[in-house]
């Protein structure tokens, strides 16, 4: 009842590349138009960083709080887990209670990991 892809194109990679090129073309076209019709004036003050009005001090491409890295590492762990969960989720109807037990063990380990990180204080922002 639900019908086929658009124009009956079987190879979806072509369509994905089309969408990607459309996105790139949108930015490139708009940039071209803006460069053609936009005004241009030179002023040394305009090129300064937009901060507080006084000349900026130091470089901003510098080290930053380690808290962000901790969340990035935790994210990595759970995101990889999500990739493992997807194929299981598609088949869960056929697997029945065996699928439930196996995934409960898997998720149990993950929740233990989260509990460990929580206990160690990785989840509280400092």
């Amino acid at each position, binding site marked *: 009842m639900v019908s*086929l892809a658009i*124009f009956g*194109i079987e190879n979806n990679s072509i369509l994905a590349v089309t*969408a990607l090129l459309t996105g790139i073309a*949108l930015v490139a076209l708009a940039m071209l138009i803006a460069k053609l019709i*936009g005004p*241009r004036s030179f002023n040394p003050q305009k090129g300064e960083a937009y901060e507080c009005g006084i000349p900026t001090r130091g470089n901003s491409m510098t080290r930053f709080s380690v808290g962000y890295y901790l969340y990035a590492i935790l994210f990595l762990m759970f995101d990889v887990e*999500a990739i493992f969960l997807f194929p299981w989720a*598609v088949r869960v109807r056929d697997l029945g209670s065996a699928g*439930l037990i196996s995934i409960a063990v898997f998720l149990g380990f993950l929740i233990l990991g989260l509990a460990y990180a929580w206990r160690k204080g990785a989840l509280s922002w400092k």
Partner: protein
Amino acid sequence: MLDFSNITGWIHDLLASFMAPWLVVLTECVLIGVGLLLAYSLLALFYIYFERKVCAAFQCRLGPNRVGPFGLLQSIADMFKILIKELISLKHTDKFLFALAPYLVIAASMLAFAVLPWGNGLQVIDFNIGIFFLIAVSSIGVLGILLAGWSSNNKFTLIGALRSGAQMVSYELSIGLSVITMVAFAGTMSVPGIVAAQSECWFIFSGHIPAIIAFIIYMIAGTAETNRGPFDLPEAESELTAGYHTEYSGIHFGFFYLAEYLNLFIVAGVASLLFFGGWMPLHIPGWEGFNDVMNYIPGPIWFIGKAVALSFVIIWFKWTFPRLRIDQLLALEWKYLLPINLFNLILMVLVIVYGLHGPVVPVQ
């Protein structure tokens, strides 16, 4: 039900009657590209107008009402204004990454946009892992935001980009787990498959309690994913000027603005796909006459209607809740939403195994 593959098939046959096969595919791809471009920009213009009107209504104002009837042409005028603004070239930026960031943000949202089901046979990218592809490409957007903040070489943009990065990767987990819950319920990852599985009853009604929990978590995480509402601290204007896009001017800034509104539509569109049946009309099992009447309303109207209604809810959040702090934001995700989501997944499997749910059309 109106089947758009008849129309596209007719165009395909027409083109194939006088063109070489490779030229037919090329022409069709150009047609699809132009269609995507039009839909993308028109929706963004509509959303800017919509948000301003809703915001005005919440604050007892009128909103834009001078340009065109009811101010409908206001966002088109704004688009022209932003196109003729100067693109300021800055001294201390990393020129290459600075120019690359808008491409990443727009390309990511365009790829995700192309996966959405607009109607029967009116869907551009139809992978059998459709919803997984959508999550994968929409997470490229965070790279663009991080690059924009880093390459601007400005303290405000750096802080804004880091907050945004931490927030978006954290809430992506909740989105992913909510999607996994619904994929387990539907038994397929393909977008038309998920829509077809809801042809008797939408998942929010047939999915028992776990579907409702997944929906609530999805809406909270989706709001955070679009940097909106109570979670807009990456661009908290009272602390960080404009967050990660402070240094962008003219249309360069416009791209981030555009992608932000389109991401709002994509989040609402995915919510309507997973929980409200995508383009599938409202069907109540047993009410044959009612279902037949609903079938006369075309799919695109259903899909856009649901997506706009859900984005209204997300805009409503913004004008209701005060902004969170970064520690509250991360605690909400890691200490509440993530554990609830993991238990909700197990609950969903219990519902599936013991057959407590409503009618789901099985995927062959």
